């Protein structure tokens, strides 16, 4: 019951956030300097043709009408027409790129989640000793690097030096991502570099505090194998904050994808957003940014629910939700 109440409350707030963000994004982009119709037709266009295009695009309608038309289209799944690529429906290019980014994000997840949890647990168990100091230092250093810096270092080593991985993530015409899985490795590793620090740090500190709990002491003192205590008793409880931090960073990861995809030329949502901004393609910017926000907000929502579900203290708690 309480769980359902929490669910409904959070879902309501999530939808409200998306509504507010859509308004913010729309107005932010709409107040952009320069006349859209003029931009489309170029500087040499006559006044009449600009006026005609403005009329056709409905640019002279009041702002709230244009917002409702845009948001309505979004809800129906119509992302509108690209300005830069005249006559191209955004839907026809958008979802393929989103798919690529999702594959990239999950590849990165596959790399950094087990890696950071393992090293985090190891550092936490060896608190204050040499392995802890080394792992924490590496985490702190890689976490601080912007994605493109770790990417450049990876390119230098694996693409230029060892020549075992491609320098850029380009899918040849006529092929798809699944035939070119090697292009995922370096971008995913660049993300792993950054995320490793956050996640292993969180895992370490929760492991340290759990290892000090009485029930762990009891388990060790009654002679249970240390490995069993660490992985069965301690990790179970120490994973909860880690799951939260991984979930909370999902949306952040999609922000980071913009940088990584730009560096590698990876054909995903991030590089699409970047090129939309460069070409001032308003409907495409709006679609990309709203979608990134959408992922961010829903990742937070799902994490929150998962946390509540996994934590019996919240699941069974009465009243305060």
């Amino acid at each position: 019951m309480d769980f359902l109440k929490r669910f409904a409350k959070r879902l309501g707030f999530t939808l409200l956030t998306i509504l507010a963000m859509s308004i913010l994004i729309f107005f932010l982009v709409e107040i952009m300097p320069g006349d859209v119709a003029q931009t489309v037709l170029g500087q040499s266009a006559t006044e009449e043709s600009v006026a005609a295009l403005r009329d056709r695009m409905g640019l002279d309608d009041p702002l709230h009408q244009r917002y409702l038309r845009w948001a309505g289209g979004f809800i129906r799944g119509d992302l509108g027409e690209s300005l830069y690529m005249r006559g191209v429906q955004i839907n026809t290019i958008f979802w393929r790129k989103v798919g690529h980014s999702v594959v990239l994000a999950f590849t990165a997840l596959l790399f950094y989640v087990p890696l950071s949890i393992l090293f985090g647990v190891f550092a936490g168990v060896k608190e204050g000793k040499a392995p802890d100091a080394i792992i924490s230092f590496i985490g702190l250093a890689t976490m601080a690097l912007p994605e493109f810096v770790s990417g450049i270092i990876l390119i230098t080593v694996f693409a230029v030096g060892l020549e075992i991985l491609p320098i850029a993530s380009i899918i040849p015409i006529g092929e798809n991502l699944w035939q070119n899985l090697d292009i995922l490795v370096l971008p995913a590793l660049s993300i792993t570099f950054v995320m490793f620090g956050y996640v292993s740090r969180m895992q370490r500190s929760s492991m340290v505090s759990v290892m000090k709990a009485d029930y762990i002491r009891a388990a060790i003192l009654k002679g249970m194998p240390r490995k069993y205590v660490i992985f069965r008793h301690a990790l179970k409880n120490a994973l909860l904050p880690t799951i939260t931090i991984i979930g909370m960073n999902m949306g952040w990861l999609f922000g980071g994808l913009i940088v990584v995809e730009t560096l590698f030329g990876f054909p995903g949502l991030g590089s699409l957003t970047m090129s939309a901004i460069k070409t001032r393609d308003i409907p495409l910017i709006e679609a990309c940014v709203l979608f990134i926000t959408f992922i961010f907000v829903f990742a937070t929502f799902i994490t929150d629910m998962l946390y509540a579900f996994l934590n019996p203290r919240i699941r069974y708690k009465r009243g305060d939700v």
Partner: protein
Amino acid sequence: MNTYLLQLKRSPRAIAGLTILLLWIIAALIGPSLLPYTYTGMDMNNQMVGPGEAGHLLGTDALGRDVFSRIIYGSRSILTIALLTSLLSSIAGIIIGFTAGYFGGIVDTIFLRIMDILMAIPPLVLAMVVLGILGNSTIVGLTIIVSITYTPATARVARGALLTCKSSEYVDAARIRGESHLYIMFVEILPNTIGPVIVEITARFAYSIMMIASLGFLGVGLQPPTPDWGMMVIENKSLIRAAPWTVLYPSLAIASLVIAISLFSDFVSKVMINED
């Protein structure tokens, strides 16, 4: 103060971080006046020469510009913007977060909801879109936009810090004395939250460097020919095989600066949290 120095002495990581940071600050302050080249000076006879050749310490780029000089010049803008950003966003965060936490009730609820909504968009994405739309970023523009995108986060930290002190007896005493709200917030409470505030400012400093470098890399930061570390990386990315130094050294400059600041800010947060 002496206890801080003592703790600093015992932390080799913090000393290393602080030393590198100070070296960069010195380089930014006096470096450009000692350099033989300017950041736009093109050595037409020595394009893309390797490090150490023809009098170019770190080589030259495709236009024959000295990479070392550009890195030293570039340290000025990134340090200036990052420092201003961390200060500005912290000040704005303190004012907003303190007001919300202090008055509580409906003001606080509205504040929290607005901050939640604003935090629903990643700061980098927000800054990128706004800067991309406005075009032609300047130091002032970059500072303001990045500060705004960071303010929701700093405001939440400030609010949290205020809440831990709000119900203290000295606050009650000040209230009974009839002090004004402003006096209580900034003269009574602020000095007692200085620990978390300093931690926040140093951490923000590292984040700002990352953000500004990333924005430069995405091409929405400072405009050419101003040397910007992030921009140098993307400008020369296609040369990574032919002239790797043009890409690698600016990257390493960013890496050394952010890692140094993180090491130091990690130390600051440990010291400040232990102290509380």
